[in-house]
Structures are given as structure tokens and as C-alpha cells.
């Protein structure tokens, strides 16, 4: 049962890719519907067994690598996090598949497209069900490659090629940092599986909990085998087992027990910052945060169902998933959390500022995706792991809804994406406008839609931070004020989200007077798109209300068995000494805490809000009356995307790279020095001796001679 969710997308891929030619379309539709529907039911069953009944499941596949101390087993791991992600991925994948049946129906390479989509789902499921970082890395890279192929799907367009290359290169930066992190993890912890790293990275390790101690001794067994090998014995003898002569297993246990805590402290001090920074960088690359955020809006060149599945709901959330999986490691160093929080806040600000002035309907939604991902990032920085995951959960549904309905509107408008040219469409496609409006309201956080529940929790989080006494280890007073100022960026983002959502809605619904583009509707729907959008409308309006208690309700114990999100220290130690505490603690211990919010903070919030309303209104006025808009510096800054794309990426980086590699490396070194001094002079020198040129016939005779002579020699020797 637990292997099946991986098989079905793979079977889909194989059917479409290799045998798609031999079937007609109706058979393929049936197969895909049945396969992914079954997959949804299986994932719901897994959700029931794992999350609700609380039985964590492992499926051991095989040993991938066994070399000295290095042993990597491929295992599928199902805990609460995985089960919830499975539900999200399968439902949205189903909707995207179903929607594409109608959306891509006229395309020549229709079967190829569907196979790529299924392959993407397969890799995403591998990423989610990974037990160790290596399996996660397989999914991580495979998802990137599928995204490259799907962005580049209409490959005759130059813009699609450019954005696909940009996407894969930005992803590759993240991949390489993750690879480096994997290397350090392997060398430090001697293992890549999340449970083992979790128990080893913990400072207060061996106490009364049975599960912990079992794993602890399991690892001690491993340590014994390390010591017998020469490679690690050296290291241990330097660091821990000073001058130790190992006779039997008991001796080893005692020695390692004695020196174990020192050893772990050593890990924490030196390596955690390196590993944490690398992991955060990888997540930044995948989730399109500040610095590497450029590829996500550019990736909108792909077909719209692809944008809804990959660039809104699943692939870009892989970075958040990585941070959630490694939260136990990241929260041991305060610096990393600070970095995560600031990255999230600044991304929110920047993506909103750019998104407000965009006119392409898909790019606006892409920038809003960027800012929503930034919310998840920022809440991870202040221990709101569950809040972050809940936002991921709801955001996937309403963002997929937005993209799919936007795609339909684009189809109707004869592939016109500019919102200034889209109008009057309400009259003939009521359902699709309604779906777009539901999505917009959900993303704005209008009460009782799903966005409200998740967003409100994230914004509350930072205001609660000061009241929790035991967080003083992480955040002192000065840092706290900085955090509060950063939090204003998030509040500003709400305004921006509101602004562009309303802008698109107004443009879609209302008639304009000065319309010069009269676009005739070209396309009408069938039941497939209707079904997929209907599912998503229901999900994005109700899922927040229905599952709020499941995720963030008080007294819920479903996160208890998700070890990366849950610290066993909580049950072991007293409150005062413990520094590893997160938001889940409050939920788990049946505490209902109502926090005070300081007056000063509220005042600051309002001041910032008014300031920004004033600024935006000014901009809006400029925009509205066309007064000197191109001389406005702020406008230019926003519309040119903070000069990052043109000035840094194109002018400085790419052009310099290519010109220098031509001028210095190729022309000067390869064709200059090396060829001159090493080959050209040498050949000239040899030409002085007048070597006769070999003829072709004679050379083959030489060869024959050599063969015969070698055979002869062997013959003689055997005799």
C-alpha cells in the first residue's frame, strides 16, 4: 500500500511516453483518471493511518551503497508531514492533469507533455517520501529537470528557452549547495537518514525515553564497527578515545558513553552553522527567495497547468519542506534562524513591490507566490513550523485555483496575458470568473476563506514572541526590535497583495470605456476543467476552516511522531533549562495561551501601514493620471525589478563570464601560450630532422607484423 503512490505516476509516465502512440485519446484519458484517482484514495488512506491513527511507517527498499563506514539504505518514510504533503500533491496533480486534457488538447506533442507532468509528480513524491537526504536530493534534482522540460515545452519560442535555462541554473545553485551539505552531513554524522541525524544532533541525548535510547544504542553499534575500521579509528583516537585500546564491545560502549556529549558539542559548534547556511541557501534556490528569486516569474513561459502544479503548489514548496525536515538541526544555531527570518521578510517586500506594477496576469500571480513563500520562510525563522506548513497546505489549493482560472481566461482572450487588454469576460464565462474571485479573496485573507486562517497565524507569531520567556536564548531585546521592523514588511505585503488582486479582479469584471482591443472569445469549456476547478474552489474556500483544528488546534497530538518537528527533550527536561522549544510545544501540552501585544508595537504597526498606504496611493495617482510616471525613481526601481535582472545578471555576470572565458582562457592561454610553447615550437623543432611521412599501406603492414609477432612470442613461450 505504501509503495503504490510512487508506482502510479511512474506507470502513467511509461504508458504515455513509450506506448502513447498506440492508444487513442479516450483510453489515455481513462487510464490517467483512474490512476490518479486511485492515487488520491491511497494517499487519503495513508493520511488516515499515519496522521490520524498516528502510526509512522517505514518501507525498506534496498541497500544502495555500502562502503567502509558509509552505508546508505533507500527507505520510504511516512510520517505526518509526508502524509499531508502526499494529499496536497496528489489532489493538485489530479486537477492539473484533468485540466490539461482540455487545455493542451490541440497541441501536437500532447502525449509528451502529459508524460512529463506524470514524471514530475513521481519525482515530487520521491522527494516527499524520502527517509534520507540522498533520496530527497534525487527528487530535488529530478523536479528541477522536469521543470526545465516543461517550461521549455513550447520550445520554438526564444523567451521560453531563455527562462528555462535561467530556471535550471538558479536551481543548480541550490542543488550544489545541498550536495555540499550532504557531504558535510555524511562526514560528520556518518549517516544521511533523518532519524539518525536527529538523535545525534541532540545535545541532551540519552534519557528515559525508550525510543531514543534504542536508537542511541543502535548508533553505538555502528560506532563500534567504525572503530574496528582504520579510517575512523584515527579520528576517534584524536578527538574522543584518547589512547584507547579496544578489547570488547563493552569497553567501547563505556568509552563512547563517557565522551559522547563532548563529541556532540563539537558537532554543534563547528558544523551546524556551515550545514545550516548551506541548507538555507538550497532552500532559497528552490523556493525562489531573495537573490535567486528571478527564475520563478520568468518560468511563467510554460503552459498554465504547469505553472499551477509546479510553480505554485509543489516544486517551489520543496525548499520549505527541506527546512521543515531539518528544523531540528537549524534551530540549534540562532544565526540560521535569523537568516531565515530576514530572507523571508525581504523577499516578501521585494516581490510585492515588483508585483504591484506588473501587467502580465501570470507574472502578477507568480510574484504573489514569491511573497506567500516568503511568509512560510519567515514563520520558520520564529519556530512556527506548523503555521508554515499549514500555510503551505492552504496556499497550494488557492494558488492552483488562481492559476487554472487565469489560464482559462487567457485561453478565452486568444492567449492575451496583459490585464489591461482583458475585459468584459464576466458576461460569458461566469464560472471561471467566480473561481478566480474565490482564489483572489482567499489569497487576500478575507475571513473564513482558507487564506485567512493560515496567514493570520503567521502574522500573529512574531507578536507573541516576546511573551515566551524561554525564547530569550535566541532573541534579545535589540534583535527583537529588528524582528518587529522586519515584520512590518510582511504587513506591507498584505496591502500589496490586496492591491494587485483587486486590480486584476476589476480588470476582469468591469467594462472599460477606452477599449481599443476588441477580443472575440475563442474557446469554450468542457466538463474536465469544470470538475478540476470545482474541486479547487471547494478546497480553497473550506480547507482552512475544516483542517485548522487538525493542524493548529489545541491538544492535537498528530505532530508527536514527526520527529523533525517535535523534540523529545520537552518530555525529558524541565522547562527552564530547555532551549529547544518550538510553537508545537504549546499545542502538544494542551496550553491555551493568550498573549499580550505591547502598545508600542501596535503603534509602530499603524505608523508603517499609514506610511505605506500613503506611498502606494501616491504611486497609484501617478499611474492613474499619467503624470511624469517615467521620471519617478521609485516607479523605475520597481518596474526594472531593482535592476537585478538587467544590470547584475545580464550585464555583469553573464557577459563578463562569456567574454572573459573567450579572451583570457581560450584565446590567450589555450591558443596562445600553451599551443605556442608546447606544440608549435616542438613540431618546428622536429621538422628540422626531416621525418618521412608514413604511408597508409606501410602502416597497416606494420600493424600486421606486430600482431603476428606477438602471437608468435606467446606461442613460443607456451611451447
Amino acid at each position, binding site marked *: 500500500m505504501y509503495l503504490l503512490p510512487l508506482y502510479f505516476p511512474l506507470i502513467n509516465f511509461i504508458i504515455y511516453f513509450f506506448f502513447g502512440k498506440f492508444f487513442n485519446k479516450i483510453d489515455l484519458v481513462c487510464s490517467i483518471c483512474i490512476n490518479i484517482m486511485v492515487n488520491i484514495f491511497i494517499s487519503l488512506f495513508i493520511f488516515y493511518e499515519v496522521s490520524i491513527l498516528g502510526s509512522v511507517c517505514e518501507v525498506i527498499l534496498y*541497500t*544502495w*551503497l*555500502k*562502503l*567502509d563506514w*558509509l552505508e546508505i539504505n533507500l527507505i520510504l518514510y511516512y510520517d505526518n508531514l509526508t502524509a499531508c504533503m502526499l494529499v496536497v500533491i496528489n489532489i493538485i496533480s489530479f486537477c492539473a492533469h484533468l485540466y490539461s486534457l482540455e487545455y493542451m488538447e490541440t497541441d501536437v506533442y500532447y502525449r*509528451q507533455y502529459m508524460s512529463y507532468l506524470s514524471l514530475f509528480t513521481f519525482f515530487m513524491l520521491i522527494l516527499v517520501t524520502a527517509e534520507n537526504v540522498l533520496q530527497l*536530493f*534525487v527528487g530535488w*534534482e*529530478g523536479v528541477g*529537470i522536469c521543470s*526545465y522540460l516543461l517550461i*521549455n515545452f513550447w*520550445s*520554438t519560442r*526564444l523567451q521560453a*528557452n531563455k527562462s*528555462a*535555462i535561467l530556471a*535550471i*541554473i538558479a536551481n*543548480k545553485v541550490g542543488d*550544489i549547495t545541498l*550536495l*555540499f551539505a*550532504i*557531504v558535510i552531513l555524511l*562526514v560528520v554524522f556518518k549517516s544521511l537518514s533523518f532519524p539518525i541525524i536527529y538523535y545525534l544532533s541532540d545535545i541532551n541525548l540519552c534519557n528515559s525515553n525508550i525510543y531514543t535510547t534504542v536508537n542511541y544504542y543502535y548508533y553505538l553499534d555502528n560506532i563500534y564497527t567504525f572503530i574496528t575500521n582504520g*579510517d575512523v579509528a584515527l579520528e576517534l583516537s584524536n578527538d574522543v578515545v584518547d589512547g584507547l585500546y579496544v578489547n570488547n564491545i563493552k569497553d567501547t560502549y563505556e568509552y563512547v558513553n563517557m565522551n559522547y556529549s563532548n563529541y556532540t558539542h563539537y558537532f554543534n559548534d563547528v558544523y551546524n552553522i556551515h550545514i545550516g547556511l548551506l541548507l538555507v541557501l538550497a532552500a532559497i534556490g528552490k523556493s525562489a527567495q531573495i537573490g535567486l528569486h528571478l527564475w520563478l516569474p520568468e518560468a511563467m513561459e510554460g503552459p498554465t497547468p504547469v505553472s499551477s502544479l509546479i510553480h505554485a503548489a509543489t516544486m517551489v514548496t520543496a525548499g520549505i519542506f527541506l527546512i521543515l525536515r531539518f528544523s531540528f538541526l537549524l534551530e540549534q544555531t540562532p544565526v540560521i534562524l535569523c537568516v531565515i527570518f530576514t530572507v523571508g521578510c525581504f523577499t516578501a517586500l521585494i516581490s510585492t513591490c515588483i508585483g504591484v506594477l506588473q501587467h502580465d496576469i501570470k507574472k502578477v500571480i507568480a510574484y504573489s507566490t514569491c511573497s506567500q513563500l516568503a511568509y512560510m520562510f519567515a514563520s520558520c525563522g520564529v519556530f512556527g513550523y506548523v503555521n508554515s506548513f499549514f500555510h503551505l497546505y492552504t496556499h497550494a489549493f488557492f494558488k492552483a485555483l488562481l492559476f487554472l482560472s487565469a489560464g482559462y481566461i487567457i485561453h478565452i482572450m486568444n492567449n492575451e496575458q496583459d490585464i489591461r487588454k482583458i475585459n468584459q469576460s464576466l458576461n460569458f464565462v461566469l464560472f471561471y470568473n467566480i473561481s478566480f474571485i474565490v482564489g483572489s479573496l482567499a489569497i487576500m485573507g478575507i475571513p473564513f476563506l482558507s487564506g485567512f486562517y493560515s496567514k493570520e497565524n503567521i502574522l500573529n507569531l512574531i507578536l507573541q514572541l516576546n511573551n515566551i520567556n524561554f525564547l530569550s536564548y535566541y532573541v534579545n531585546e535589540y534583535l527583537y526590535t529588528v524582528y518587529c521592523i522586519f515584520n512590518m514588511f510582511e504587513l506591507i505585503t498584505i496591502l500589496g497583495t490586496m492591491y494587485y488582486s483587486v486590480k486584476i479582479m476589476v480588470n476582469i469584471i468591469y467594462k472599460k470605456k477606452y477599449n481599443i482591443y476588441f477580443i472575440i472569445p475563442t474557446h469554450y469549456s468542457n466538463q474536465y476543467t469544470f470538475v478540476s476547478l470545482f474541486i479547487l474552489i471547494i478546497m480553497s474556500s473550506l480547507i482552512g476552516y475544516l483542517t485548522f483544528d487538525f493542524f493548529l488546534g489545541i491538544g492535537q497530538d498528530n505532530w508527536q511522531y514527526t520527529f523533525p518537528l517535535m523534540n523529545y527533550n520537552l518530555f525529558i527536561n524541565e522547562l527552564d533549562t530547555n532551549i529547544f522549544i518550538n510553537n508545537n510545544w504549546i499545542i502538544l501540552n494542551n496550553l491555551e495561551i493568550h498573549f499580550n501585544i505591547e502598545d508600542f508595537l501596535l503603534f509602530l504597526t499603524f505608523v508603517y501601514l499609514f506610511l505605506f498606504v500613503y506611498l502606494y496611493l501616491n504611486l497609484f495617482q501617478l499611474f492613474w493620471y499619467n503624470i511624469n510616471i517615467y521620471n519617478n525613481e521609485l516607479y523605475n526601481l520597481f518596474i526594472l525589478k531593482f535592476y537585478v535582472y538587467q544590470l547584475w545578471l545580464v550585464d555583469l555576470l553573464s557577459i563578463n*563570464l*562569456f567574454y*572573459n*572565458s573567450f579572451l*583570457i*582562457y*581560450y584565446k590567450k*592561454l*589555450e591558443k596562445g601560450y*600553451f*599551443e605556442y610553447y*608546447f*606544440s608549435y615550437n616542438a*613540431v618546428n623543432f*622536429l621538422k628540422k630532422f626531416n621525418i618521412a611521412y*608514413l604511408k*597508409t599501406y606501410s*602502416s*597497416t603492414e*606494420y*600493424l600486421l607484423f*606486430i*600482431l603476428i609477432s*606477438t602471437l608468435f*612470442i*606467446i606461442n*613460443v*613461450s*607456451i611451447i
Partner: protein
Amino acid sequence: MLVSFNKKDVVLFISLFLYILVLMLWLFYDNSILYYQWLFNIKIYNLYFYFGIDGISLFFIYLISFLIPLCLLSLYNNKKNSTITFLSLLGLELLLMFVFISLDFLLFYLFFEIILIPFFILIGIRGYRKRRIFASYLLFFYTFVGSLLMILSIIILYVLNETTNILILSFLFRSYTDNLILCVLLLISFAIKIPIIPFHIWLPEAHVEASTEGSVLLAGIILKIGFYGIIRFVYPICADVLYIFAPIISILAGLSILYRSYSTLIQIDLKRVIAYSSIAHMNICILGLFSFNVHAITGVFIILIGHAFIPGGLFFVIGFLYNRYNTKLLKYYTGLSMHMPIFTYFFIILILGNISFPGTSNFLGELLILVGLYKVNLLSSIYNVMIGIFICTLYSILMCNRILFGLPNNKSILVYKDLNLLEILILLPIIYHIFWIGLFPLSWLDIIHYNIYYLFL
């Protein structure tokens, strides 16, 4: 008989028979023995020459016997010059086998030299342009310089120890300075073969000018003789002085990676791009080899094995393109995915192998090398490798994008023809091997595991 055989068929059958023999060899090979297996000797004029196989040489023999039938198949429908090249390829196969099974330094040198002649012919006769003469001379003389240094070191060894048998040489005494001199001579002679930075001019020329099967064999096997030589001869003979040269070789290899990667970015010849990327990968292997770590050296072997399949497959694919359109320049090819889907899929899979996609052989090798380098704290080397991997992605994807995607160019290419059955049959086993090593590496690692430990004993 109803079926009539011509010369080509006979040669093909012989090579396939050899492949089956090598598979039997692998089947009956005992993993648990540290030492050489199937030792036998021949006596020539009171000199005993030893032959034998361990896990390391078994792999190279497997690669040779695997690649040669594919090369023969790729030439099968080619009517120009084919019988001569068929025979020279078969001769090359036999001679390369001798290179890898001889346990005597002198015999190794002999066969190492002799394979230059068929290679000289392969490039000189079967090449495409007039520049091929220049390229074959470069190949010949660069290797010849290395060989001179090697014969010098063999003479020194024989004078000092009165034997050239590698089974004995590692246990005999030589003074520190003697070993130092020997190490320098041998390292330079093998560095030319790999090639490391100042001696690398011959390889791109040879790759570009050689025909398809020449490039495949060059990338697949000839480059690895350098590594094989270092592991089989330099490691045991100069074990006490090798660590002195580790830093300078690491620096040179790191520089070669950066230099090769950057200069690949602007190449317009398809074969040149792959030749350069193969040099970059070889230098990553050198970094691993001189970290003296078990994991890194295992990773080196994995890359060496996988490197026969990935650039080999790419050279085959480009050869198929060349057979159709007679050009290897990037600018004539655009939008092939529109009309040649099977070609597109094979090319994408091979490019994925080149950029070390997890699940292919290169990924496993690079991971193990990085682990080994981090274990011995060679951080600068790690950064070099990282930059190499990143830029490898850059130029691979750029090349892939230029050829496969974009608007089809109807001026230069008028008739599109997808891969035929023979070409698919050549590429399928290559791709099977790439994923076999990547996904189930234990069957490969078991064999070399003990031999690598034996290096450090």
C-alpha cells in the same frame, strides 16, 4: 551454408565472443581474494613475464570488450575504408587487453607504445579534415615524450633492483632520492596521458579530428591508462614519496578544472565541448586520487567506469548527427526535437549523465570524491570541484538547448531522419550501464573494494 559471412561479420563475431569470455571472467572472479588472480607466466630468453588480473584491471578489460563491438557496429554500414579499420580495431582490442593484464613494467610499456600505432592510423586515416595529420602527430609526439621518460624510469628500476616485475618491485629497497626521481618521471609520463594542465593540447585536437569510434575509444579507454598506470605502478613503487607531490598535483588539477570549464563555455564545435568536459572530469578524478582516501579513490573508479559510457555515448550521438549532415558546428543545428524525438530523448539522458544527475554513475562518483576530499579537509579542492560541476551544467544545458530546442533551421538542414534501429541498439546498452552503475552500484563496488584497500596496505 545459406548465410554467407564477410570479413566484417567475422571480426564482429570475434569481438562479441571476447565480450562473452570477459563476462565469464567476471562471473568466476573471486571477490574475497585480495591478490591477483589467474596468474600465469611466459618465458622469453630466460625472462619470466607475469600476467594476472585483479578487480581494477577486470573493469578496464570489461570496458574494452564492451566498447569495441559497439564501435564495430557503428561502422557496419559504412563502406569507406571499413575492412582496414575493422582489423585495426580488433588489433587495438587485443593490445589493450595486454596493457591491462601484464604485471610487468616492461611489457606494460611495450603494449602501451604499440597501441599508438593503430591509434595513429585511426586518426590519420579515418579523420574528417586535413588538420587530422597535425592532430595525429600531436598525439604521437606528446605520448612519445611521456614514453621516453617512462623507459628511462624502467631502466633506472632495472639497474637498481634487477627486475621489472611489479609483484616484487614494491617489496624491494630503493633509496629516498631514487624514489623521488622515479616518481617525478613516472608522474609526468602519466600526466600527459590524463591530461593535466600544461600537457593537454593534444587531446582536444585528437578528439575533434578523430572519427567517432576513435573519440569513443580515446575517451573511454586511452585516457584511463594514465590512471591505471598511477595506481598499478606509481602507488606501490613510490609509496613513500608520493605524498610530497600531492599538493602540487592537486593545484594543477584544480586549475585544469577551472580553466577547462571556463574555456568550454564558448566552444562552437560539439565534439570539442564534450572533449573539454571529459578533461574536466578526469581532473576531478585526479583530485580524488591524490587525497589518498578510500572513498575518494572508489569514487574515482566509479567516474572512470561511468566516463566510458557517458562521453562515449555522446560521441556516438554526435557521430550519428555527423553522418547525416556532415557538420559538427553548433550553429547549424536548431530545433531537432521537433523532427527527431528519439534522438532528443537519448541526447537528454546522456546530458543528464554528464551533469551528474542522481541515479547516474557520475553522481555517485562525485559524491564519493567530495566525501573523501572533505574527510581529509581539502576545502579548496572541494570548491574547485563544485565550480566544475556548476559550469558543466551551464555548458551542457546551453549545448542541449541550442541543438534540441528553438525554431528549426530550414536553411541548413533540409531532410530530417531520426535514429534507425542499429543506432538505437548501440545507444541502449550504454544507457543501461549508466543507470545500472548509478542505481545498483554494489555489484560494481564489491569487486574493486578489496583491491583499493590493498593499495593502502
